[in-house]
């Protein structure tokens, strides 16, 4: 730049030309890059948080008449889910007859519920046409086991077909009777899942045992008789439970309620089909908060209902945790040993440098490639061989020859191995030479130095690596889709049946849950808030893990900085 005049920086040199020449606009542009990146990050987190947290809030139910021009007026009873502006042209292309004079309409997304009556839970409505709005306190929303929510007014409560309460008393009666159903349901769940589940599991084991003996041609008459006797025992036990179950079912079917929906139609709903009922318009802020937290608790502790679109995500949380734990068991020793070898034992040179670069780059290999490897090598190759050797009695049904918890965690262990190796190596490299030399000078062997001095000092680094690995594994979905994750697992991988931990079982996973419910669900609109809530949970876990790892790493760095001086 040829400046004829000395440009005294700092002196107020106003004027657009000088400002431009100074490069100031460009600096602002780069600054804008930072601002936009941060805004995107914050905006994304805010979006997930707001939408995820809103899922549990009991929205008010509006009653009104939907008066679309040219159509019959229609009574409506619905929650307003969202509102947005839509141009007349877009509405027209969606098949609505709109007024030509008005260009912008506000469009509401209403949750009308009652899918069994209306065919769909949701409908769009134009704000202007929803008239005579009221918020009656007696409007009740019932969550059901099937067909989604029911929105209407409680007419009466019946026991074995006889009306026992009407009017205001009905609501009281409903609540007490609902509590009874909840207790019965708990009992039934225990019977079905735990007791009968156990018997089925044992029967299956006996069947496999017999088949195994048959294959080995060791099935003698007395062995067969012994198996049969055990089977008969279980069958008898099963009959007994079955009776209890039938009795419970009858007991539950006793009560029913009669409900009037918006259109005036009345329907009878057995209480056995109802999860809970609430009157959002009558709730105060504290009642709503209480409701909110009970819903949130249900979300993390309960099982999914209605093709995963309602209820909780407990099995997915459980599956994720199990998988991550198992993966940690695999990845930690191997990662640490590999790092120890590279840093402490191998001769430093071109080869170790190459290995280091290669390991580093494996972290950048797309995760789906690990999934492909896991499917081919673990599931089909190893699993297939294991089945032939150890589980021939179950064939052609695969035991380990199909995706499962073990293969999924092994696949993710390989995927996260580079993370652990790199972090551990970094920790080892930070230990000052003097510390090692002091230990050796005092007469300790190399192994002793390693075990007593180096490893304890680098343990926070390993911890960091492990946390980062866990955070990565918890969020991975693509490889898991190939090696054992399912949308709905019939049983948890850990239960009361010997051998307790079932490595061959398929499992549910938070990330896959998001994918599945968000994209494979038949009722996406209803499932969407649940997906946001799941996403929020996953993001929280992963960000916390990462922040924790960063903190551990920073503290470690400071510690060794002090040692170096």
């Amino acid at each position, binding site marked *: 730049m040829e*400046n004829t005049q000395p440009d005294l*920086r700092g002196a*107020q040199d106003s004027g*657009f030309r000088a*400002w431009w020449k100074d*490069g*100031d606009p460009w*600096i602002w*542009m*780069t*600054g*804008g*890059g930072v*601002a*936009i*990146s941060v*805004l*995107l990050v*914050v905006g994304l987190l805010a979006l997930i948080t707001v939408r995820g947290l809103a899922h549990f809030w009991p929205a008010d139910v509006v009653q009104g008449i939907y008066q679309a021009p040219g159509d019959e007026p229609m009574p409506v009873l619905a929650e307003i889910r969202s509102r947005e502006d839509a141009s*007349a042209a*877009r509405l027209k292309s969606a098949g609505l007859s709109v007024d030509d004079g008005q260009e912008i309409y506000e469009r509401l997304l209403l949750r009308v519920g009652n899918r069994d009556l209306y065919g769909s839970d949701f409908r769009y409505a134009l704000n202007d046409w929803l008239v005579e709005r009221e918020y009656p306190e007696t409007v009740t929303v019932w969550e059901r086991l099937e067909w989604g929510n029911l929105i209407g007014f409680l007419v009466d409560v019946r026991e074995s077909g006889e009306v026992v309460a009407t009017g205001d008393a009905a609501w009281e009666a409903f609540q007490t009777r609902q509590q009874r159903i909840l207790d019965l349901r708990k009992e039934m769940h225990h019977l079905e899942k735990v007791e009968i589940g156990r018997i089925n599991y044992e029967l299956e084991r006996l069947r496999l045992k017999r088949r195994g003996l048959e294959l080995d041609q060791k099935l003698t008459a007395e062995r067969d008789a012994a198996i049969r006797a055990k089977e008969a025992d279980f069958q008898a036990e099963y009959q007994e439970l079955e009776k209890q179950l039938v009795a419970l079912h009858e007991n539950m079917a006793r009560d029913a309620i009669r409900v009037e929906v918006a259109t005036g139609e009345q329907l009878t709903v057995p209480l056995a089909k109802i999860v809970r009922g609430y009157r959002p318009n009558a709730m105060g802020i504290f009642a709503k908060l209480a409701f909110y937290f009970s819903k949130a608790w249900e979300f993390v502790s309960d099982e999914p209902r209605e093709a995963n679109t309602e209820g909780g995500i407990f099995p997915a949380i459980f599956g994720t945790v199990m998988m991550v734990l198992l993966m940690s068991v695999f990845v930690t*020793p*191997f990662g640490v*040993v590999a*790092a*120890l*070898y*590279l840093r402490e*034992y*191998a001769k430093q040179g071109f080869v170790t440098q190459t*290995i280091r670069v*290669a390991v580093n780059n494996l972290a*950048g*290999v*797309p995760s*789906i*490639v690990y999934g*492909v*490897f896991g*499917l*081919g090598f673990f599931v089909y190759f190893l699993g297939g061989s294991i089945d032939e050797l150890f589980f021939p009695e179950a064939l052609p049904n695969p035991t380990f020859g199909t995706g499962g918890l073990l293969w999924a965690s092994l696949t993710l262990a390989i995927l996260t191995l580079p993370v652990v190796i790199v972090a551990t190596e970094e920790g080892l490299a930070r230990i000052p030479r003097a510390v090692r030399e002091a230990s050796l000078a005092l007469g*300790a*062997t190399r*192994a002793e130095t*390693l*075990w007593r001095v180096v490893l304890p000092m680098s343990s926070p680094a390993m911890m960091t690596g492990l946390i980062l690995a866990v955070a*990565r594994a*918890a969020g*991975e*979905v693509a490889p898991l*889709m*190939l090696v054992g994750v399912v949308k709905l697992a019939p049983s948890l991988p850990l239960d009361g049946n010997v051998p307790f931990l079932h490595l061959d079982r398929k499992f549910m996973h938070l*990330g896959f849950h*998001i*994918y599945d419910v*968000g*994209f494979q669900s038949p009722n996406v609109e209803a499932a969407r808030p649940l*997906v946001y809530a799941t*996403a929020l949970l996953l993001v929280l876990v*992963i960000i916390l893990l990462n922040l924790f790892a960063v903190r551990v790493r920073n503290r470690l760095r400071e510690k060794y900085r002090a040692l170096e001086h």
Partner: protein
Amino acid sequence: MNQPAAASLSEITPRARLRYLLDRLATGGVTFGGLGVIFAVVLIFFYLLWVVLPLFFPASLTPLAQYLAPGSAAPSLYYAMEEQGEQGLRISADGQATFFDLNSGTVSQTLSLGAPLTAVTEVDVHRGNLAALTATGSVVRFDHRYKLSYPKGDERVITARLEFPYGEEGFAVATGQTLAVRDSDDKLVIAVGDQQSVHLVGYRKSTSFLDDAIQLDEVGRVTLPITGKVDQIIIDPLMEWLYVIDYQRAQLYAFWIKQPATPRLNETVGLTADGVPTVAAGMLAGGISLLTAAADGEITQWFPIRNTEGLYRLQKVRSFADAQGQAAAALIFEESRRSFATLNRSGDLELFHATSEARVAQEQMPISDLVRGSLSPRADRLLVESGERQIAVLEVDNPHPEISWKALWGKVWYENYQEPEYLWQSSAANSDFEPKYSLSPLSFGTLKAAFYAMLFAVPLALAGAVFTAYFMAPGLRQIVKPTIEVMEALPTVILGFLAGLWLAPFIENYLPGIFLMVVFLILAMPLTGWIWFNAPASLRNRVPDGWQPGILVLPLLLAGAAALLLSQPVEMVFFDGNMPQWLTNQMGINYDQRNSLVVGLAMGFAVIPTIFSIAEDAVFGVPKHLSQGSLALGATPWQTLIRVVIPTASPGIFSALMIGMGRAVGETMIVLMATGNTPIMDFNIFEGFRTLSANIAVEMPESEVGSTHFRILFLAGLVLFMFTFVFNTLAEVIRQRLRSKYSSL
């Protein structure tokens, strides 16, 4: 061993020995474990390679047996094999159907078709449906069937039989030398070729509701005069086309016979140039393509396509050359794949695959003077017969003929397509489907996704990195850097879900606003700078240097909001109130809700932290004395940045871009969820695509282990692996060089 032993050097105590042993053990253990882990990692690559490599192996043929044709001494007309490859069937001119053991040639059963035959034809090869023309001019429909039984435990016994669905009498048509028959649920068409004419008979078929009896009504019986000699007649399985071929004059007559009563000559095609005679013809599996072999060894594939006037014309699609330039004595077709073999008199057999244009094998048979042959239903046995009725049986190992370099990457002319195309379509409902394994559209989709992601991510990430490393106040940097970096750990499934369910509808609703926002945001930055520059000093002094992003937050938010607010008015005025529809109607640009723009934004967001983090490190690592020297010489900070800092850090920035690119290429969940996953080749930003990784995720679970499809998906995985590995290694090497450069500065 709890306390360090104070052993003197001269005596070696047992404890010292133990310690020494433990030390050696630890060394051995760690070395073994470390090398084991590294080996396991290398295993990934070799395992993928091991699965993929069989795709590129040629076919192999192993002779199994050789014997004189079993059964009668009359000339053979037809050979077939059952599915297990154990039993063979020979039909000879005296009307004998001889079932024999393929490995030994011993006759297991001889059945008679009742009369001497002049021709045998395949009606439906999958079901073993055949038809024969007797010397007296009647056509007999029969099926060869096999029953598997295990009378003695695991030993398999195959019993063969013939069935006559329309009785053993046959349909009286005419005497002749060649025959073509097709039979479906509602139709039966028979064509008998005599010297200079073709007799065509059609029946309507109906099944009685009461007793499942089949009733046939004749709907047409015509004789088609042919100017040349009738050497071969072929009817397609849909019974729409009748091809009559005159070998000597190399002429083909294509008749439209959808109404068998009124056949229409659609066209006459010259099969070869320069009057080279035709020597053989037949139909490929699937019943669409016709193959003709010329005397000079050229084999040509034809199928009918519509021309510009909407008329069907036989199109010459591709040709194959016999390696020795010899005329084929016979063409043999595989039952379900588009593979075929040619035999010639010198005993040479060549195995081709039509779609991939590959010659998968060329082998000298144990016998010469070959005249006839057959491939078993599973294409694992080949039977050839010589003029002296010698038979040779061979085992065929030809698992992946569909794959060639051209089939994977080139334009291929698939059946029923107007022109050669790049297509990926790995499966369909019917078994006769021609698989389309072009990786081009998938690779194109991968690069398209990466391109749009980088288009969004690179400017933001680099600008952000440069500012954070060079201009930003240290206090702010300590907050900003971890904030952006933590996003690297954000599960992509969440980004994909937001992109597909929130961003895609949002963009569709605010399309003009999105484009306005780009302009507004870019303008807002220098504008804010200009206003700030002219702001009163009292205000300016309150904010320390390097806090520009903080000042920019509010203006940027306002600019974004303004763009969204203006979206609907702009759409109303310029785009008839609905921009996606306007694009489709006025500009002819397709608009998918889940399109490349959505993926570009979402995946760009995923890539920003990667690029940002590495580039920021590179810029921050530039030795301070360089920039201070530049500033001291009177350069402005911006000049110093552009002329000194960025050139020094450029290798690091380059490696950041490479690693970001690697991440964008391999990303699966975002593209899986935010596009429609249609494998198209179109650069339109408003349309979707399918990437290699998403394709694996979609198709791998349904793929049969060991099949061609399975191995191709592994190949896609290997391609991704190699691509990212090479990219990352390069980036890593560049980064290490840079590090040593910095330390020397």
